[in-house]
């Protein structure tokens, strides 16, 4: 019964991943990331993603602050932030966030304040969407690992290789 439970969780995870890929939220870089996870760093993906969220949150905050005043907007710094966000997003394979970043960058390059604002909103939306989904994914994974480690401790060891 519990084995079935594990199976179900795995299916759920795969479904979620497939959905995210299908929607273009993630790209193959995420899979690369998962491949980097092994025995020496079992929580690599979640660790990296958490760092990403941490950084992104900061960047988004900064971006919002920068866009607060239309006149005083520092487009150059905005560009740097965006560059960073873009880099990290691409690193974890958050495709849509990255794309929005590119658009944002373009808008900032043109000093298009309303465009930037719109882009920021979109960025935030995308970011939240990504965050929620990834959180869900990790949660399911946690459960799966928990369940499988409880019942099938052996499987757990081999699981990183299966990805």
């Amino acid at each position, binding site marked *: 019964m519990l084995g079935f439970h594990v199976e179900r969780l795995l299916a759920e995870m795969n479904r979620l991943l497939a959905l995210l890929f299908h929607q273009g939220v993630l790209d193959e*870089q995420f899979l*690369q*990331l998962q*491949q*980097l996870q*092994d025995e*020496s*760093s079992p929580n*690599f993906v979640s*660790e*990296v993603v958490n*760092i*990403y969220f*941490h*950084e992104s949150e900061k960047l988004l905050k900064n971006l919002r602050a920068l866009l607060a005043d239309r006149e005083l907007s520092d487009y150059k710094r905005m560009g*740097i932030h965006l*560059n*960073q966000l*873009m*880099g*990290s997003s*691409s*690193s*974890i*394979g958050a495709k849509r966030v990255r794309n929005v970043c590119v658009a944002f960058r373009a808008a900032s390059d043109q000093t298009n304040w309303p465009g930037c604002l719109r882009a920021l909103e979109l960025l935030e939306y995308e970011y939240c969407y990504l965050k929620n989904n990834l959180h869900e994914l990790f949660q399911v994974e946690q459960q799966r690992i928990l369940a499988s480690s*409880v019942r099938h*401790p*052996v499987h757990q*060891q081999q699981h990183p*290789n299966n990805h």
Partner: protein
Amino acid sequence: MKPTSCIVLRPVSCLFFLMFVLLSLAGLLIPLWINRVTRIESQVNLIVYNINQELFSGIERTSTLFSPINASAINLARFLSSSLDENELRSSSHIQSKVAHTLFLALSTVPYVSEVAYIGLDGLFFGYYVKGGQPFALYSNSTFSSTQNAPKDFTLYAQPANGTGELYGEAIMFPPSDIFNKIWFQSAPNNSNVYASVETDWADSQDLMLLVNAGLDRRGAVTFGYPVKSFIDFFTAGVCFYNGSLILATKDGIMLTEGIPNTQMILIDNRVSFNLLGPDGDRVGRAVGNITCHSDEGMLTDSVTSIWGSKYVISCSSVEIAGLQLVYVLALPYSRLSAFIHNNIMSAFIFLMILIGFMVITICTFVYLIVIAARREMNLCGALIKQMEATRQAERKSMNKSLAFARASHDIRASLAGITGLIEMSHNIVPKLDPSGPELHTNLLQMEACNKDLLGILNTILDTIKIDASKMQLEEEEFDIDRLLEDVVDLFHPVGMKKGVDIILDPYDGSIMKSSRVRGDRVKLKQILCNLLSNAVKFTSEGHVVVRSWARKSSLETGILASNKSYSLMRRISCLFSQVDRAYSESEVVKSIQLDPNCMEFIFEVNDTGKGIPKEQQKSVFENYVQLKETSSGTQGTGLGLGIVQSLVRLMGGEIEIMDKEIGEKGTCFRFNTFFSICSTDISANARDVDVEAHGGHISSGSFRHSGSINRTQSPKSEASQVILLLQSAKRSVILQNYMERQGIKVHTVKQYHQLSPTLKKIKRKLGLSQYSSSAKSDVNSRSDAHTSHASSTRSLKEVPLSALDGTDNDLLFHSNPCTMGSLVSFILIVIDTGAGPFREISRAIAEFRRDLNNGCCSRVVWLDKPGSESSNFRGLGEHALPQSDIVMSKPFHGSRLYQTISLLPELRGMPLPRKGETSHDVENIDPLRVASPSGSTINITKKDVKEQSSEDDVFRKVEEIKEQKTGKVKPLTGKKILVADDDPVGLRIATSVALQLGAVTSSCRNGEEALELVCKSLKDETNTRASMNLKPFDCILMDCEMPVMNGIEATRRMRQEEGFYGVHIPIVALTAHVRGEEIDMMIEAGVDDLLTKPLNKENLMKAVSKFIF
């Protein structure tokens, strides 16, 4: 309830049955008895009747005896009549002379006669009587005829007679009336027949006399007088009356005997009645009894009459004595025989009845008591059932409670986890928001600590509940027991160090290493060890804690002894007993484990030098909720720890105990054993197969395992390697020395740091002597390593420059050691604890030692450093810089670090290390791949070993290849140093990971300036130590373009400038998120070798790096 009623009824019915049997027996026997008794009674009656009859017949018989009395009278009469003629009888003188003589003769001869007389018809009378023995003669002188008309004149004279009848003395006038008045006197001479009557005697008329008259042919009569008393005596003497009395009376009513005292019998017309008389002879009351006397014999009628309170059976009959008709009455006391028997029988019957009644009562009482007891028992039974029900209910309740408790605890744990998360979040937020940060921060830290404690307590409680509910189950998994031990010890090492307690992992005989890959419950074993260790650390304030473990074959004895039947039987019995003994039912599990041929027994010992546990408390320590009094105040905890440990150990089939320490030794020693089955994975199975073929020795199941160490050290090389130990902890050095010596390594222990120098000198002297001879013998030990030769070829031992030694990129390619190029003589490994003494002095001693070391000898130094202050000692060393061959390790020096160090020794080289290399952070780690690199040639120690060695290396290579194929992890960048410079933590982390997975060693910095500094420094150091050497501090630099402080472009430009001075070129790969040209152009302009667009992954990194690395 049914069985209870049965319980009651059984004895009761049994008793009823008994009673029934008894009563029926009585009912049967009593009539029988009564029948018997009545027969006896009738018999007795018959006997009584017979006795009566006898009496009567006796009386009759006696009465017949009196007939001779008559006869003597008749005979005398006949004689007189014949002897006397009528004349003679007329005169008194004749009579006196003739008759008197005859009469006197008759008086003296006939017995009993007391009176005798002759009466003539004419009135002549002559007689004798006896009075007081003196006979008297009584006679009349006158004839009857003459005095017929005057009877008053008829005188009688009494005159005494002498012995012959002669009269003498004086004749006295006898009052005649007495005699004449008697009827007989007149009638007697007229009767010719015999006639008897009862009269008073002649002498004084006091005694009754029986007078018998016999006629004398009408002329006269003869009278004999007998006293009645003599008759009566005759009767009473002849017949026994059984206390009865015989009353005789004449028909006229004259009583002859006395009869019943105080009574007077009255006889009227054959009827007898008694008058009761008072003491003075007066009649009292009316007559009693009225008995008819029957003359005909045999028809005796008895009647019972009560006289004076006592009953008499009175019977009456008539009898004739000497012609006298008499009536006799026989009065016998009533209650003599039959009544007595009847009474006795009655009383016996009553006794019997009483007995039966008593028995019945007893049985009834008995039954009653039993019923009461049974009822009580029934009540008790009912109470018991009720109690049991209640107990069951309570048990169920408690179980539910504990379940609910467990569930609640689980929920609590979830909330605690939430709190932990929140605290962590608060941690991150606080510094930004609150200027009064520090206080809040410390509060948060405390909260976190509290939370952790709470979680710990909760976990122990949960464990206890689990164990109580016997829900705890072993979760078997494959794990490395050796590694587990090391992890646990490492975990506690910092804690111990903080307290000044050294925690030492004692490899003991190395048996754990040989069979470290086991199958069992890793988590629980870890829990046990952690618990014991934390206890040991907690209660030890100084000294050390030694964790020792070894494995032994447990299944061996059963295997061998299985053939011995009786013994196995004994064993089985003992097993049974042990099952009983054990409170835990897991013993079956144990048995099954022990029977498993793969099963090994692992024994662990945690030995501390703390305050110890008093002997009397050693048992109670393992009970739940028990804490030692004096310790509980100072330390917290629930007291569940050891209880859980014991439960867990038992769950795993082992037993935990406190070992006795030798006197004088402080502390406690816990020892427990567990059973694990040695497992063999696919790879290791392969490896083992191959190994067995090639080596014939043993190899452990792990793919990277230390094996065959003993075999190797048996090689006949006398100048074996030497190890010099200088450690802070004496205990640790003793343990290590023991271990190494067991492995066949010669060990010198230096106790004080100032002894180091002398010791080293001594060793050097020795080496100097033996060097040549040994070098001649020793063979070529060519170890040309493909990818290391280029780096090490030009280095010489003495002037090895301190290469990049910042704790991050220590190159430990020990096989690049130049001494291996030549012939190997001896290898000296020096292990030094930096905390053992002033570092400078030690390093000076080492440097001195090295300086004069000849070529044939080679040495390596392993520095042990504190984990926290990484290489603090090594900064700014100046002229005492460490050679590159030196290894810096962080403490504690045991487990894998120990194995690594040992594997530096040539004897053990080429062997796989016990453990795989870890992350890049562990700078002192030696990658095993570099030891047995597939591309590297084999390492031969002696000629003799060449074959073995190579074959063994083949084995490892094979194993390695298999592993690589399986995991798909080929590590092409093995041994490369890569510097990653990125300000984005995500990017940095990913880049590091990618490089790591490819096998490279990475360093990281957050901005361009840092990177530049690092590179510059490395370059400078290298120049200092090694002139004109084409050695790069990094094999590659990954440079992000946009960074704060100094961006990638600037950094690259500056680096290129720096490199120019040293004549090296470090490949720089630029990383950028840009796709557009501007920045890329700038980077290329700055001098990057390649350009990578983010995201970075293995493929594109490899593609970029391979261009200039290979």
